[in-house]
């Protein structure tokens, strides 16, 4: 009888110790959670237009680590900026990303997502996914960083092209030629343009 009790208590204690470890999730689980939530909303015919956008946006924002993303995007210009400029950049950058990409998510038409490998090294990870759209498969990879028990996205690679590197090279050039303040100004303008849908075609020159 006593041995039973000891065994029982030992089991309970080891379960209790094991639980916190089980609470930490893997990067693939975390990204899948967010993507599934977004897809559920997109597939619901009841939710349309602005309401749909208002539901999707916080879900996506919650999965992104905009601070890390901004640091990598600005590179050496991050250290050169004041804390106030840094905060301003993070705010504008996350708004710009939202206008750009959440708008695209709206054009959803029955895409499906397949999850591939995940590679984890210390607190960094990469999760490979494929978005199947019409008759093409688009490889989309997420680079994630662990903060606490959860994983957050700091870069998205679409067909091997890194978003962060792409922004970094554009923004780096703009800062080099016109300065940091001008970059923030152009970002503000672009957000306004995208929000009001006044982007004109043929404006590449």
């Amino acid at each position, binding site marked *: 009888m006593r041995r039973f009790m000891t065994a029982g208590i030992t089991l309970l204690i080891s379960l209790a110790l094991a639980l916190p470890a089980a609470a930490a999730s893997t990067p693939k689980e975390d990204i899948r959670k967010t993507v599934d939530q977004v897809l559920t909303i997109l597939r619901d015919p009841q939710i349309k237009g602005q309401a749909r956008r208002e539901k999707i946006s916080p879900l996506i924002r919650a999965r992104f680590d905009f601070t890390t993303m901004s640091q990598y995007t600005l590179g050496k210009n991050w250290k050169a900026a004041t804390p106030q400029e840094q905060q301003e950049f993070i705010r504008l950058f996350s708004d710009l990303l939202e206008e750009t990409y959440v708008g695209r998510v709206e054009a959803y038409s029955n895409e499906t997502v397949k999850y591939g490998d995940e590679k984890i090294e210390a607190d960094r990870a990469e999760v490979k996914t494929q978005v199947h759209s019409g*008759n093409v498969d688009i490889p989309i990879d997420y680079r994630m960083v662990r903060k606490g028990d959860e994983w957050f996205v700091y870069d998205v690679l679409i067909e*091997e092209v*890194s978003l962060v*590197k792409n922004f970094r090279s*554009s923004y780096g050039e703009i800062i080099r030629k016109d300065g940091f303040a001008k970059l923030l100004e152009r*970002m503000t303008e672009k957000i306004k343009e995208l929000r009001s849908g006044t982007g004109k075609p*043929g404006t*590449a*020159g």
Partner: protein
Amino acid sequence: MLLRSLIAAVVFGGWCLTAGPGAAMAAEDPAAPAGEIDFEEGYEPNGEVVWDPIEPVNRGIFWFNDKLYFYALKPVARGYRAAVPEAGREAVQNVFTNLGAPVRIVNSALQGKVIGTLDELAIFLANSIFGLGGIFDLHKESRKPSPEDFGQTLGHYGIPPGPYLVLPFVGPRNLRDGVGMAADSLVEPLPSPYYLKVHQAEVIAAVTGEQINALSLDKDTYEAVVRESLDPYLTVRDAYMQNRAAKVAK
């Protein structure tokens, strides 16, 4: 005359490829072994800038191509999309993809990629014979998504990309891949003098037709880039160079 310009081009090309930051980049060894991810790579604060020595010229041609797209190609593609159902346009795409197979096969072989070469060869034969000259792509589901071209072959053997160029009609290139494209055109059935005896006008029509067909199946990407970027020229330049680097590495 042709020989002299060829020699001049090769010498100039050699200078471009050995001068500039490109040469230094090619000498670097990747920090992580194959299959591992180096999470710091490419995110260094003082990361390399694309070598773009003739940027004002490139920007001009980029502007020209943009106008060409919006005022010439896009309206035609729109009309084409309206007139021809998607299945038909896909069939046309399949034919062009199949015609591109010899280039992929040769370059795959040159890079020593045995499985890729055999795959492409098998697919080409199957589609040509059973797919009625390539109209039906019998292997669409299983096709590996990385076609090889001579620019990638050159990159595989360590040749750095060289300066960034924007070519009229064609769009973004780097010098190495531009040379690669010229070499490939000797192998491609359409423009090649060695395969089909077609007239110049027919070649131009076929190549333009290929672009229009491709546009009709994917109209959103370029326009989205122009609409959303702070500087579309820089966005395209960086995306092109990243994409090529990734293709060479595969």
